[in-house]
C-alpha cells in the first residue's frame, strides 16, 4: 500500500563533508544530494532548474570536480569533499570568480550563477589559463537564459587573469 510505504521511508545516518565542515544527518535514502543540501542543511545557494540532469543549475563540486547534485545520492559521496557556492568565499573575501562575475554583470537573475561559478572554479583549478574555446567547452552543460553567456566568459577570463 502506498500509505504504508510513505510512512516507512528508509532513512540512513550519513556524514557529509560540505565546505570543509562535517555534518551528521538522518535522511531518507532516496533523497538526492540537491534535496539534502537545500532542505536538510539549508544550503539554498545550490539551485535547480529541472531535477533531471539537464540544465547544470544544481552543479556542486565533489573532490573538486563538477557534478549534478540532482543526480547524486548522498550515500555515494560520504567522506568526499563537497563544495557548494556557500563554500567559495574565504571568510568575507569573495573568490576571484565571484568578484569578476559581480563586477562585469555576469549574473543577471543570478539563478544559474552558483552552478556556473563552481564549474568555472573546477576548470580554473585544472587549467588556470583556459582559451575561450576551452571555457565554452567546460561550461557547455550549464544553461543560462539571461546573459547570452558573453559576460560569463569574459568574467572567467578576467578572474583567470587576476589569479595568474
Amino acid at each position, binding site marked *: 500500500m*502506498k500509505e504504508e510505504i510513505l510512512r516507512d521511508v528508509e532513512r540512513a545516518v550519513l556524514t557529509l563533508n560540505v565546505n570543509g565542515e562535517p555534518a551528521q544527518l538522518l535522511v531518507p535514502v532516496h533523497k538526492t544530494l540537491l534535496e539534502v543540501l537545500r532542505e536538510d542543511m539549508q544550503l*539554498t545557494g545550490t539551485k*535547480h*532548474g529541472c531535477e533531471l540532469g539537464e540544465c547544470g543549475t544544481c552543479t556542486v563540486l565533489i573532490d573538486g570536480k563538477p557534478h549534478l547534485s540532482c543526480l547524486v545520492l548522498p550515500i555515494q559521496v560520504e567522506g568526499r569533499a563537497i563544495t557548494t557556492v556557500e563554500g567559495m568565499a574565504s571568510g568575507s573575501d569573495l573568490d576571484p570568480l565571484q568578484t569578476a562575475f559581480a*563586477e562585469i554583470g555576469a549574473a543577471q537573475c*543570478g539563478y544559474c550563477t552558483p552552478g556556473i561559478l563552481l564549474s568555472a572554479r573546477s576548470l580554473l583549478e585544472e587549467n588556470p589559463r583556459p582559451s575561450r574555446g576551452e571555457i565554452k567547452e567546460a561550461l557547455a552543460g550549464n544553461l543560462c*537564459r539571461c*546573459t*547570452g553567456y*558573453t559576460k560569463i566568459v569574459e568574467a572567467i577570463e578576467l578572474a583567470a587573469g587576476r589569479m595568474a
Partner: protein
Amino acid sequence: MKVVGKPLPKVDAAPKVTGRAVYADDMLPARTLHCKILRSPHPHARIVSIDTSAARRIPGVLAVITGSDLPVKFGILPVTQDERALEHEKARYVGDPIVAIAATDEEIAAAACDAVAVEYEVLEPVMSIDAALATPKDERIQDYGGPNNVHKFVALEFGDVEGGFARADHVREDVFFYQGNTHLPMEQHSAIATYVDGRVTLWSSTQVVHYVHRALSRVLELPMHRIRVIGAAHGGGFGGKTDPFAHEIIVAKLAMITGRPVKCTLTREEVFYAHRGRHPVLMWVRTGVTHDGRITAMHFRTALDGGAYGSYGVASTFYTGALQPVTYDIPAYRFEGCRVFTNKPPCGPKRGHGTPQPRFGLELHLEKIARDLGLDPVDMKRRNYVKPNTRTVNWLRVTSCGLEECTQRVLEASGFKTRERRPGRGMGFAISSYLSGAGTAIYWNDMPHSEVQIKVDRGGVTAYCGAMDIGQGSDSVLATVVAEELGLQPSDVRLVTADTDTTPIDLGSYSSRVTFMAGNAALEAARKMRELLVQAVAGAGKRYEEVSFEEASVLAEARFGTLTTAGSYTPPKIAGPYKGSGVGPSPAYSYSACVVDLDADARTGLIKVNKVWIAHDVGRAINPLLVEGQVEGSVYMGLGEALMEEQVFRKGLHKWPSMLEYKSPTFLDMPEVETFIVETDDPEGPYGAKEAGQGPLLPVPPAVSAAVYDALGVWIDEVPVTPEKVVEALRRKDKGETPRYGPQRFPAIPYPETIKVDGPVGHQDGTC
C-alpha cells in the same frame, strides 16, 4: 554626471554571486506544507466527476481542493476573465490544473494526487489554426468569442490604402510563419503563502506583484488590504511570469484552510504547461512600392494560435499589427488580426510581445521586394525609415529615433557592403523598434503607473518602489537615479521594492516599462529630496556640494522634521482617436539594427553563426554594462528562436516538455556579439533613457534568415530555420521549383468589416 552612464556593478550582485539571494523556493518556514497539483491528461474534456476521498485519507494530507473551492474566474486582462485556479467543469489543455493537495511532504502530496479519481468525457481537441477556424466536431473550447474557436478579431485601416496600392509601381505578397516557443526561465515558478491573523502573505517569482495582488483579491474574495504580495528574488521571467498563475492562488487558499505556510514549486514539465510564451503566428503581407522602393501602402494579416485561454492574447493580437509603421514610413496601412483558441497551453507575452513575428515577416518581405526591383535591400529599407518627431499613420508618436545611426554602426563594423561573396557564407541585415513601456495600464485607470518614495534620516537614504527586479537590473536603475541626484553612489542607497505592504505601486516588469517609468518617478522624488537638503544646507550658510551627505541630512531633518518625498509617473495621453488605439502607444520607442554573419552548409543544412553586430538606440545608457547585458541576452534569445526553439504538440501532447529536448543555445552555440550603444537622449526618458530589454531580440531572426539566403540562395520563410528546412529548400531549388521553405497559403479568415481611420494630418512631416 557622476554615476549615470558609468559601468557600475549591479547593486544586488553580491547576494547573487554568493548564493545568498532568497528565491521563492529557497524559503522553508517551520511547518511548511507542500502542494502538488493534479493536471488534466486530456487536451479537451468535460469533467464528469472528481473523487478525492482516497486522497484525503492518506496520512500527511492536510487539505484537498478542487474548482468548487475556487470558482471565481480571473485573467490578466479585464476583457478575458476566463481562467480558474482549478477547473471543475472542463479541461482545455494537457496540464490544466484540476485538484490541489497540501501535505506534510512533497511525495505524500504527489501520492495523494495519484489517489484522486477524475472521470472525464473526452472531447475532440482543436490543435491548429485551421481546425480552430472550422466548425468544432464536439464543442467550442471557450464559450465566448467566435465564430467557431475564434477568440479575437482586429480590422483597422489607416489612410487611403486602396489609393496607395493604385499608385504603386510594384505590388508583392508573401506568407510567413513564426513557430511558437517558450521562455524557459532557469527558475521553475514557485510561490509560498502564509495566512496569519486573517491576512494572506504570498512570496512569488512573479514579474507583476500588483496584478497578482489584484487577482488574489478577486478569486479569494478578500479585500486587497488583507493580502500582501512580495516579489522574491527572481530567477528569470522574459514575460513568462507576467500573468497571475493558478499555483499562486492555490497556495494562498491552502494556507487559509490549513493555517500553515504552503509552498508550490512547479516541476520543469509543469513550467512548459504554464507557458504564456510566443504565439505561433501565420502572416500574410501585401505591399505596394514605387520604382525606387518607397512604400505606398501595406496590408498585413496575422493569425495567432492562442492556446486554451485569453491571457494577454487580445493585446498580443493588436501588437502583431501595431509597430510596423514605427520603423517604416507607411503612408496607408491596413491590419487584420485574428487570434484563435486551441487545446494547448495558453500563449501570452514573451520578450517582444507579439512583435517578433511580424518583424520577421516584414523584414524578409522588404528584402524580397528590393530584389524584385533590383535595388539594394538595405538602401531600400533606409529610404523608408521613419523620422524623429513624427506621428505614424496609425497615430503612434515617434520622438527620439536612432535608426539611421544604428544602421550605420552595424554596417560599418561588419563590413556588410564589402563582404566576401561565396556560397555557404552569408550576412543578413534587419532593423526593429520596441516600446519603452505601454502607454496604458492593463486595467483602465487614471492613476500613475509607477510611484517612488524616498526617506532620508541620519545620513541614510532608502528608496521604496513596487518595481520588481527580474534580473534586468531595475533595482540598480532606481539606486543610480537616486544616487545621481543626491550626489551618492548607487551602493549607498538602500532599496525596498516589490512589496505591496511597504512600497508604493509600480505596475511590474513587462513591456520594457521600468527604466522609463520607475526611473522618472525616482527622478522626481530624488529631485524633491535634493531640494530639501540644498535648502537646509543653504540655511546654514553653506553649499550642498561642500558638506557631507550626513551633515546635509542632519541639517534638513532638524529643519523640516521627517524627510520623505515622493514622485510618480503617468504616461502622456497620446493614443489615437479610434477603438483599439490603446495598444501600441508608448512614451518612447527604442530602435535596433543588426547584422548576422553565418556559415550554412549546403549538404547538411547546418548553420553556424559566426558573429552578430547589433546597435541599439537606448536613448541614454543609465548603466552601459547592464544595457550591454540586456542586448546580449536579447541576441541570444533571438538566435534560439531563429535556429532551434519550438513549442510543438503531437496528438494533444507537448512534444518536448523537458530542457534536454526543448533545444536552447548553450555556451558552444553562442557566437561573438559586438554591441553598439546608440544614445539619442529621449526628451521624456529619465536622463534621456529608453528601453533595452526586449527590442534587441527583434531584428535577429529575420537577419538570420536573410543571411541564409545570402549564403545559399534559398528563402526560409519560417522560424526556426532548421537544417531540415534548409535542405528541403535547396532540394526544391535544384529541381527548379521556388527556392523556398515556408507556408504555402494563408487561410480564409472571416475578418469583420475594417474600421477606417484617417491618419493624423501631416503625419511624418513633423507637424503633428
